[in-house]
């Protein structure tokens, strides 16, 4: 067979996919949803007595107004991208994993423990091992959820949720105990050894995490569309009966998806610790997990599309800080925008299902 045939097939496939996107108008419907939530936000800003345009301008400037701001936004994007891609993978398989929050927390602790243990090791050893430590810890936590879910038939939403609460307490316990910095003014670990700091990219205040995250999202997209495992996940997400009929083990798929998502969330935690705080600090993971769900949804559960989705949330949040600094619109507004966006996107994408 000539090489031309598959290539032709591929372009045909891409074309139909693009056509399908256009015909279903998925992209434009998400666009309308975003627009609607911004309109609602504008109304709320006006209600608070501020000028919505001015506020949005402040958000934009705060998000991309300078090289530094861009870097900050990218850093903010990183954990959302990583954990959101993992959540998207689970959602694809029909597993509602809302445990990213706890997995990030535990992952951060794992990375911190590894980095502290590796004091003295060169960066080339310390950073990868610490990140692996974070990913492993996140996986472990997600695995625990999978085990309870599969073993005892408890709904995954409840398991992952309850484990979130436990994970946060666990990290506090670690900080009050073995990982804590003696005499520190707060629940925090000692500073990581410098060799474990995730370096900044030249010229930007952005750490290497964003690269890892983009690579991970691309890898996940590859897994989803080009591997048998991804195929099985997609089948089971569409119909569990069909997946069983196809000979895929639902339990194994659940393990696979949960462990992968856990590893990514753990990695996100590790990157936060090594790249942002340079130490494990109480509450560093609060709220990431639920936003990962927003991001996965916004990205229509497609890891590559999670990139712009995470970027959107990252920009929005880093911009919103600037908004409050400059014109005093409360940041709670951003939570409102996120909630509204989720709702509108849900309605928009479900309408034609």
């Amino acid at each position, binding site marked *: *067979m000539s090489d031309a*045939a*598959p*290539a032709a*097939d*591929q372009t*045909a*496939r891409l074309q*139909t*996919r693009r056509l*399908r996107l256009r015909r279903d108008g998925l992209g434009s419907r998400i666009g309308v949803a975003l627009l609607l939530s911004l309109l609602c936000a504008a109304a709320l800003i006006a209600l608070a007595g501020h000028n919505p345009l001015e506020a949005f301008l402040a958000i934009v400037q705060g998000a991309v107004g300078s090289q530094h701001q861009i870097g900050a936004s990218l850093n903010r994007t990183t954990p959302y991208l990583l954990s959101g891609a993992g959540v998207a993978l689970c959602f694809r398989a029909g597993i509602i994993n809302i445990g990213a929050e706890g997995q990030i927390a535990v992952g951060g602790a794992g990375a911190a423990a590894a980095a502290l243990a590796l004091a003295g090791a060169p960066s080339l050893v310390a950073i990868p091992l610490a990140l692996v430590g974070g990913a492993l810890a996140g996986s472990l936590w997600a695995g625990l959820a999978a085990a309870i879910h599969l073993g005892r038939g408890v709904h995954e939403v409840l398991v992952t949720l309850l484990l979130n609460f436990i994970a946060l307490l666990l990290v506090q316990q670690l900080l009050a105990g073995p990982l804590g910095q003696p005499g520190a003014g707060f629940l925090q670990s000692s500073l990581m050894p410098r060799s474990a700091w995730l370096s900044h990219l030249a010229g930007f205040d952005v750490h290497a995490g964003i690269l890892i995250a983009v690579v991970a999202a691309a890898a996940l997209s590859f897994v989803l*569309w*080009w*591997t*048998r*495992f*991804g*195929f*099985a996940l*997609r*089948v089971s997400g*569409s*119909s569990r*009966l*069909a997946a*069983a*009929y*196809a*000979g*895929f*083990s639902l339990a194994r798929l659940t393990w696979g998806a949960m462990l992968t998502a856990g590893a990514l969330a753990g990695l996100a935690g590790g990157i936060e610790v090594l790249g942002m705080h340079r130490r494990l600090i109480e509450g560093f993971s609060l709220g990431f997990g639920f936003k990962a769900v927003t991001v996965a949804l916004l990205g229509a559960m497609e890891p590559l599309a999670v990139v712009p989705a995470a970027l959107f949330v990252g920009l929005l949040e880093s911009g919103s800080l600037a908004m409050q600094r400059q014109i005093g619109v409360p940041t709670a507004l951003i939570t409102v925008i996120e909630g509204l966006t989720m709702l509108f996107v849900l309605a928009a994408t479900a309408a034609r299902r």
Partner: protein
Amino acid sequence: MSMMLDMRGIVRRFGHVVANDAIDLDVAAGEIVGLLGENGSGKSTLMKVLFGMLPPDAGTISFRGQPLTGHTPAAAMAAGIAMIHQHFMLVDAMTVAENVMLGWRDAGRLLRRKEMADRIRDVSRRFGLDLDPDARVAALSLGRRQRVEILKAILRNAELLVLDEPTSNLASAEVAELLTVLRRLRQEGKGIIFISHKLPEVLEICDKVVVLRAGRVTGRTSVAGASQGMLAEMMIGRDVTAPRPPMVASSPGPARLSVKDFLAPGLARLSFEIRRGEIFGVAGVDGNGQIELVEALAGLRPAGSGAITIDGHDVTRASVAARLTRGLAYMPADRGTTALVKTMSVAENLMLRDSGRPPYGHGLLLTRGPANAKARALMADYDIRARDPSFIAGRLSGGNQQKIVVARELDRRPAVLIAHQAAWGLDPGATHFVLDRMLALREAGAAILYVSSELEEVLAISDRIAVMARGGFAGIVPRGEVDPRQLGIWMAGRAA
């Protein structure tokens, strides 16, 4: 004579399909009208329009002198129409009494449970329905469930009763009981619309018959003096009866599929063998263990005890994947959610069970180029009419969807094929095609288990025929020795 129901010029379209094309239908009090027609001829649609579940695109309905337009099921019921759907509309988790009270004004806003239970017992006794108001519907047989539906209609004083294929799920004893009840209702002056594909019972119970074809009325006749052949001709029109594929007596080879002392929930102990080049047909009323049997063989349900071997290899506890590797193919009856993933493309559905093997995949990876090429080839071979392999399977017509399943399962050159309702919902051409492929597979030496509730189909292609009743085989006969009366007795051998 003034008609109880008067439907005039009903038109209903679904996209390009004209399901009802200017249909007129009258029913008088104390009359049973048979509604006949091939699959997809528009019977159910017409009834849904009558019952207010679908708005018509044109036409008028008048019931007992009152016009019915833009109505809802609630309004239809209030007017005195009751509908018994092909798939029962009962809540399994609730009791008979609760199902009866659901949505019924007389039950009161504050439910009068005791009074209702008494009334249920009363009517149930009067019509010989034998229903316990406190029984949970989930625990009732299909025949009983249907009686619950009839009970609902009687209790609500329905004047017009619509029964959409009420007998297709019933054993013959149950059918007889149903017909008795219907006669009784006719005596009481109710009107009845009776939809069925089974001509003998139509001739037995109906007063007149209306025949639909492709959404139009192609015949009306009074039953007196009508014959089955006449009705069949009105239904099928110029199309001659489906040609029966020629069967050559098979030369029995060694056993390929063997089932010994097999026991699983919902099944009685089963033992049988299917040999090389043999089609083993399983007939019987749906719900007698067919689904349990095929799914257990396919590896989708846990086995209780006993042994299943394929070509001498024990697969009793093997996974679905392991059975696939041993050469077991399976066409499930549930096309919608098991056999196909409707949101995925034709190509992806063709590789559903073979994604780990060339040309679809290699190791952990999918090989999309070769997979698409293969899909094109299969689409040509099996006449799957889709624009290209990336077309979404759920948007194809039912027949083309089924062809995907057939292509996928046969292309693997299976040693053993389990086909469950393989021609379900297919038009005659497509049915013919599927049966042809089965026979070709038989020639190639496979062992085939062909399970269908359509006796005709089973008789047409099986070397041996078994009848399933109450989870076991009521009897097995070779093709040459089939006695239709005996088959009927076996089929009815199921508790009411």
